[in-house]
């Protein structure tokens, strides 16, 4: 018996949140605090030929302007650190940061942005990942438009022999699925407050979901040891993966280091929706070999992920998707090729369900189309193929504490579906 575990205990900070007592980052107001706005690229692709911020710097009410030249450390961040805080030259997506202004208020900062002289040589962008994969496509990145894994230009998963599996199959069923680009839309938009504290350290109030993950990146950008940054957070007004990437802390921190005054940088909903990291689009091409009795004997999947202009967590999410895209089913022959393609869009990165929601949606639609094609009940095909304890997944992991059959039985019961006795007799404990 447990006293607390398993009990519906109300949230520790729930009342604070709903009564407005919780201090979120945008609730912080410091004496003399300045406000940041950022000049974002108006074009999807191009080269900065001329950038002059002097008129903005001279404007009354402006405390400072920063560009790529003001990054003391590494002007790159991300899980695969290839995105600049401020782009020094190449523009790869509309909304890329070019310069930031700190002023007495946001309106003044906006006015100062207008005074920045910017000349961009516009170039032809590419938006379609299939087009971007072609050898003559415009280059999003100098190293090429397709990410190179340790297995080459695709993440290769090979279990058994898929072609042999197709030979054993009574049916071959194919399907292609595409999902859209999504915004996390947390209630609390991206925001950061930064200042130099009483011990001469850089203090940052953050909305980060991952303090230590981002502390490492910020340490590299600022060229400061971790103990010279006081990174304050821990309570966030919704993340959904949007706050697995830095959107404001690097800009606010660089500005505070330069002007040594407290600053706040917050995105408008418009900026957040259009120019931050996204749940990127995917296309899934399935080919399944199925026996008359409903057993899936071969599954071949090609996945194409459009990761936008920087790596973000793109290659990572292709990997994660590849592990489970074949579904929670015991399939002896699996072949997966995962492709991560750059296009001139905002970087795709993590969002709730991170590669799994995308794969599950396609794979489960495919399951229902298989059921239709072979004339089998969609519950039955799932029960027949469902993982049991000890089954092996696509990447050769062993399934432990399987529970799919138990979940399906209960769902059928709650939905008023009378399952045949042979399905009710099944268990995840064995076949």
């Amino acid at each position: 018996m447990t006293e607390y575990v398993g009990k519906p205990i109300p949230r520790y900070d729930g009342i604070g949140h709903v009564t407005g007592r919780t201090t979120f980052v945008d609730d912080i107001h410091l004496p003399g605090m300045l406000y940041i706005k950022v000049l974002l690229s108006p074009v999807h692709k191009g080269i900065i030929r001329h950038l002059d911020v002097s008129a903005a710097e001279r404007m009354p009410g402006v405390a400072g302007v920063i560009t790529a030249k003001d990054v003391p450390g590494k002007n790159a961040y991300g899980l695969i650190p290839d995105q600049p805080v401020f782009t020094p030259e190449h523009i790869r997506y509309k909304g890329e940061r070019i310069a930031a202004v700190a002023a007495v208020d946001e309106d003044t900062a906006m006015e100062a942005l207008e005074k920045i002289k910017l000349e961009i040589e516009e170039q032809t962008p590419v938006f379609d990942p299939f087009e971007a994969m072609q050898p003559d496509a415009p280059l999003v990145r100098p190293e090429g438009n397709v990410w190179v894994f340790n297995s080459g230009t695709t993440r290769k998963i090979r279990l058994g022999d898929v072609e042999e599996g197709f030979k054993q199959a009574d049916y071959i069923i194919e399907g292609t699925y595409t999902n859209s680009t999504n915004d996390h839309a947390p209630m609390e938009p991206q925001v950061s407050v930064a200042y130099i504290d009483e011990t001469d350290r850089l203090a940052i109030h953050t909305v980060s979901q991952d303090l230590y993950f981002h502390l490492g990146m910020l340490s590299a950008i600022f060229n400061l040891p971790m103990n010279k940054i006081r990174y304050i957070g821990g309570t966030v007004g919704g993340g959904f993966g949007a706050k697995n990437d830095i959107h404001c802390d690097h800009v606010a921190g660089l500005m505070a280091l330069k002007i040594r005054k407290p600053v706040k940088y917050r995105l408008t909903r418009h900026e957040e929706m259009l120019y931050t990291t996204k749940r990127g689009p995917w296309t899934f091409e399935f080919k399944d070999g199925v026996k008359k009795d409903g057993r899936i004997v071969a599954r071949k999947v090609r996945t194409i992920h459009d990761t936008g202009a920087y790596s973000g967590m793109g290659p990572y999410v292709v990997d994660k998707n590849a592990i489970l895209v074949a579904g929670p089913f015991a399939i002896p022959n699996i072949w997966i090729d995962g492709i991560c393609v750059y296009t001139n869009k905002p970087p795709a990165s993590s969002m709730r369900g991170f590669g799994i929601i995308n794969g599950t949606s396609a794979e489960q639609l495919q399951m229902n189309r298989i059921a239709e094609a072979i004339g089998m009940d969609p519950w039955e095909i799932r029960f027949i193929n469902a993982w049991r304890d000890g089954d092996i997944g696509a990447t050769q992991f062993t399934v432990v504490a399987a529970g799919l059959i138990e979940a399906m039985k209960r769902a059928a019961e709650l939905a008023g579906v009378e399952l045949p006795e042979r399905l009710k007799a099944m268990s995840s404990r064995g076949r």
Partner: protein
Amino acid sequence: MKKRGIGISCNTHPAGLKGGGDPSQALIRVKLDGTLDLVIGAVDIGQGCKTILRQIAAEELSVPLEAITLSNFDTDIGLMCTGTFASRVTFIDGNAVIRAARDLKDKIKRFVGSQLGVEPEQLEMADNRVFVRDNPEKGMSMAAIGAAANWGGAILVGTGAFTPGAGQDFDPETGKMTAIASLAFGACVAEVEVDTETGVVDVLKLVQVYEIGRAINPLLCKGQINGGSMMGISFALTENLFPYYPAVDFAPETFSDYILTTAADMPKEMIYDIVEVPHPNGPYGAKGFSEMTASAAPPAILSAIHDAIGVWITDYPATPEVILRALEAKSTS
């Protein structure tokens, strides 16, 4: 005309980073009056990790929930945590808290043993006190322990860290990568009504069951299921930043054209349940599950649309425009 249909789906979700190698730490210290500070590194993004990690600590130490203060607020004090993502905090930070609590329990027993002149092995911890197993009258309350330790020049701190395993990479030829912290499972039945004149899809009913090892807090699980379903519904039906993908034209800029499911759009019938197949490595058997609540509904809804109007929407979300174009293509083919 309004047409109804039913569709089903099932799903699975792993906890933690692919390939493992994503540790977390926890620390618990005894204050002067015997109350406790639990220090973690995980961020609470609304999922409620502050709540469940306190529950786990209170359970392990047999102290009242109210005795535990949780702190996670900065990188001076807060401990290392790989991050709040990948449905990992319950599984991984939960295990770190268990280890910290057990470490503290050992230290408290040793301290009390020295105070009472008994072997630590003879002591039990329950009901906010430590006492001799065979003579329960003989013991010390947590308040007495806190005072005696702190004023006596001792410090009682328990620490714990947990990683699901060393990080692995894929084998380049086969993709072999065997690390997976836990797998949770789900099943969903959706019932929809499609208006063939307007193309609007109304989700009437969602039945969802998740197998999550152990629900540490069923109330927060319900929150995940409700919130995840909302995201799943609009993933299937409305949310699209590039409606004419791969073209980037006509991108929405506000919530009036980027359509999220709201409370008003939720199905009238939301039926859910949790089943539990405990995971051998999970805290109290728990698996990570929060993200998967968004993944179950979309394919069930899209399949229910097929059941209703006889077309497979394979390029989603199934917005009214997509539905009407699909119906038009069906009637002309």
